Each structure stands twice: as structure tokens, then as C-alpha cells.
């Protein structure tokens, strides 16, 4: 378990001090895939780097499995770091070492024997699907392959925690998905606590179970990924979520449409009920679906529909009331 307790990180700039991370409290349970999302400059990178003390907090404490590591230095700090793996946006592999030597590096640091290394590295390469690249130099690998080496390297010492600093931001969409699948798979197989930062809600949606949303150094919202996606509370979160659950209608349709446009978000078990056909039967109106999307997050459906209802405003109020009782949210859509 990782506890981030009242952590503040201040930087001194020419214009005075500036809080990159402002009094953040987070608890990350063992085995979780915990996402921290925010735009660039939100302080998420600074925050994740406090967990292994690459960045020492100005105030506050970092607890790992009940151990306060904040003041650790020298040997004690290095011993803790041996149990925390980390992967990076730009992979940060040693160019002058082969894939084998790169993966072996954390083990060499931790004082593993040659035999242990010779046994472990091929296992790790198999886990990340790069067995044939053992003696190749990083410059001969693609971005996705480099990140796979990064992941294998991070896992070399069987860490308790895996820190992922924008692991897919330098990769194309297809490679991103493959890397996320791999991370998810590793989390399931090894039960390793995974903390990931990203600026993309899509990444959170794909692999995280819990998410903290950061803006200007502060956590503005935190919860299960599914809840955050279906009912974002904070305006900043709503903006982020809207980006992935974005429904846009062509201007021609917006002009032509008669009656009201209503956006309905529904989730959980309700998503499986025939709410729309019930509404049509109950009120005797026509409901036309103009746009829609159903996402599966954490294996649970989350749907967004854009409905066009041509009826009197009183009736629309009534229908909206009916839908509100049965779905997560209903609002008038303005295009």
C-alpha cells in the first residue's frame, strides 16, 4: 500500500516559490492499477516522482507498506528503490548496453548473482514478448519494443510497485494499446501495484481501476474509473471525460432537427433495460436516436445517447423526468 500524506512540492523560481504539488493525499491499495490524469503542468509527474523520492516532498510523507520512507537517504533509500520499478515516457534505456544488459542492470545494482541474472532475464523477455531481441542494442528497436524492454527492466527485481510515467505518450495508438494490454496483463499475473500517470483519459479508461484527476497541483476528483466516467463531478473532470465520450453532430442535422435534443448517459445494470422503448410506449411519442456510443469500462457498459424528441415542452419535461429516474444523467444538448 502506498500512502501519499499531505504532500507538497515547492519549486523556487525567479518569480518566487511555486507549488507543483499542493497538499495531496492519496491511498493506493495493493494490486490496484491507479491512474493519475491531468493536463501537462498539472504536477502529476512531480507527484509520481515523490513516491520513489526522485523528487523529495517539501512537506508531507510517503508511506510504503506502512513504512515512512520520506527521510530515507543513502543505503536505506536505495534498498527501497530496489523494490519499486519505474518506466518512462522516453524509455530511458542505456544505449551502449544490449537489451540483456539493460534488463540485467537493476539486478546488477541490487547485487544479484550472474546465475540469477542469466535465469531471470530470459523469463522477463518472454513475459514482454521479446525473446528474440536479447542481444540487440536499443537503437535497433521500435518505440513499442523499447517500452517492452523498459517494462522488463522495471520488473527485474520483482518490485512491489510499478511506477509508470506517461508510458504510452511517445507511442502510436496501436502500440499504446499493446503496451497497455501488457501492463494490465502483468498487473493481473503478478498482482503488482501499478501507479500510472497520463494526460489521456483513454489510457485511464483502458487499464485503471481507480483514478485521481489532477489540476494545478491539486487532486480535484478521485474514485473508481467507472464512476468518474459515468458521473464526473468537477468541471475539469467533465471536460476531460467529454473529450473521450464526445458526441458531435454535423451542423446540418442540428439545423434541421425539430423538437428537443437530449443527451442521456446511462450506466450499470440500467444499461441493460429497454428504457427507450418503454418511454416510447408510455408517452406515445417518437424518439429518434441521432448519435450514440457504448463504452465498456472495467467490463461494465457505459452509454451515451443523443435523442431527438418531437413533443410539447411539458411532455418533454415529463419524459426527461422519466429518463432521469432510470439513467445516470439527462441533459438538454446544445450541440
Amino acid at each position: 500500500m502506498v500512502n501519499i500524506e499531505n504532500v507538497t512540492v515547492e519549486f523556487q523560481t525567479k518569480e518566487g516559490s511555486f507549488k507543483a504539488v499542493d497538499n495531496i493525499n492519496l491511498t493506493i491499495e495493493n494490486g490496484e492499477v491507479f491512474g493519475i490524469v491531468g493536463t501537462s503542468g498539472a504536477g502529476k509527474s512531480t507527484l509520481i516522482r515523490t513516491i520513489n523520492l526522485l523528487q523529495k516532498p517539501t512537506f508531507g510523507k510517503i508511506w510504503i507498506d506502512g513504512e515512512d520512507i520520506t527521510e530515507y537517504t543513502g543505503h536505506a533509500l536505495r534498498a527501497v528503490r530496489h523494490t519499486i520499478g519505474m518506466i518512462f515516457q522516453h524509455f530511458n534505456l542505456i544505449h551502449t548496453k544490449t537489451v540483456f544488459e539493460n534488463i540485467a542492470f537493476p539486478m546488477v545494482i541490487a547485487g544479484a548473482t550472474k546465475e540469477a541474472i542469466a535465469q531471470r532475464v530470459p523469463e522477463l523477455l518472454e513475459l514482454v514478448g521479446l525473446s528474440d531481441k536479447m542481444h540487440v542494442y536499443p537503437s535497433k528497436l521500435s518505440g513499442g519494443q523499447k517500452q517492452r524492454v523498459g517494462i522488463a527492466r522495471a520488473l527485474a527485481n520483482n518490485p512491489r510497485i510499478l511506477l509508470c510515467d506517461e508510458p504510452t505518450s511517445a507511442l502510436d495508438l496501436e502500440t499504446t494499446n499493446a503496451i497497455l494490454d501488457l501492463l494490465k496483463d502483468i498487473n493481473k499475473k503478478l498482482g503488482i501495484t501499478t501507479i500510472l500517470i497520463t494526460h489521456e483519459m483513454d489510457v485511464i479508461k483502458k487499464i485503471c481501476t481507480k483514478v485521481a484527476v489532477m489540476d494545478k497541483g491539486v487532486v480535484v476528483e478521485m474514485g473508481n474509473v467507472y464512476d468518474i466516467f459515468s458521473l464526473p463531478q468537477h468541471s475539469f473532470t467533465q471536460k476531460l471525460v467529454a473529450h473521450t465520450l464526445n458526441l458531435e453532430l454535423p451542423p446540418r442535422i442540428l439545423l434541421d432537427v425539430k423538437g428537443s435534443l437530449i443527451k442521456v448517459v446511462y450506466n450499470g445494470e440500467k444499461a441493460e433495460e429497454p428504457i427507450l422503448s418503454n418511454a416510447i410506449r408510455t408517452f406515445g411519442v417518437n424518439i429518434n436516436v441521432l448519435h450514440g456510443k457504448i463504452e465498456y469500462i472495467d467490463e461494465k457498459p457505459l452509454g451515451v445517447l443523443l435523442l431527438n424528441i418531437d413533443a410539447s415542452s411539458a411532455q418533454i419535461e415529463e419524459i426527461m423526468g422519466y429518463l432521469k429516474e432510470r439513467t445516470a444523467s439527462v441533459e438538454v444538448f446544445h450541440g
Partner: protein
Amino acid sequence: MDSFIELLPDLLKAFWETLQMVGISFFFSIVLGIPLGLFLFITDKGLFWENRFLNVLSGLLINVVRSTPYVILLVLLLPLTQMLIGTTIGPLAASFSLSVAAIAFYARLVQVSLCEVDKGVIEAATAYGATPFQIIKDVLLSEALPGLIRGLTVTGISLVGYSAMAGIVGGGGVGDLAIRFGYYRYETNVMVITVVILIVLVQIVQVAGDRIAIKTDKK
């Protein structure tokens, strides 16, 4: 042709002296220039032995040596040379001032190559709990190796040039031969021969350096 055969013993002796001067100071530029450059780098801001005072001090020391024209440095170091080596004459004595110049020169080149090392890789090693020594050995020196070798090539070539100057105060060597015979005695052919020898020497160093640098460069 006759003059060439006549010259041959002198030429071989001079060549051997040049090799001695260049070799000795080249050796010291590696042994002391790399630690000094490394020291400059790791005492810089944001690195693990950050120490502003020592950083500025060592930087200043290097600049003093580097901004002094070599001929003047050589003369300034004569008393110290006398003290340390017991003479100011001969290739060994000349090697002292040559080494001082080469160490300062190469230390800067080492620092520049280390600055080129990706900070992210250093951070990764730190995150995995590497000790400063492990970072120096497995990340800094390893990643900077091609640059370090290119720097050595440049240093070696500069040394060939400097060693010719060292001849002025009795260091001997090919440069000294060129001045004594070619310049003072107007024997142009001697001058030409020595220049050709120096060119060949520089070429050998350059080609060898480039080859090794390419071999170590995995980027």
C-alpha cells in the same frame, strides 16, 4: 637523398622523442582528465555531488590553464618541472607541461560529452537504486564513451602540435628538428620531411580514433 640518409639518425631520435612526449601526456590526460571532467560534471547543478564552490573552483583552474598560451604555460611551469623531474631539458621534462595542458583540455571535452548523456537515463538508474559509483561506471562513462574517444582523438592531435612547441625549450622531438634544421639552417627538405611525418602521425591518430568511436557508438 644523401642528406636524408645523413639525417636519418636525427630523425629517428626526434620521432622517438615526439612519441614519448605525446604518449606520456596522452596517458596522463586519460588518467587525470577523465576524473577531472567527471568531477566538473557531477558537482554541477542538479547532479548527485552538487557543490557550487568546488565546481566553480575546478572550472576556474581549468580555464586558467586553457587560456594561457601553451608556450607561456611551458615557461611558467619550468621551475615546477625542475622541482618534480630534476631537469627542464628533454622529452620527459617537456611531458610535464604537456600533461598539464592536455589534462585541462581533455577534462573540458569529457565534461561536454557527459553533458550529452540523456538525463532520463541517469534518472532511471537513480530510480533503480544505483549508487553514484554505479551511475558513473554504467551510465555516465558507458553512455559518453563515443564522445570520450572522439575527445581523446582531438586531444592526441593537439598534443602532436604542442609537442612541436615543447621542442623550443629543449624538449626535442620532430618539431624541434624542423626548427633547428629547416628554419635556422634553411634546409627546406628537412622541414618538408618533418611536416610530412607530423601529417602522417595526425592522420593515424584521427583515423584510429574515428574507427574506435564508431565501433562504440550504439546510438
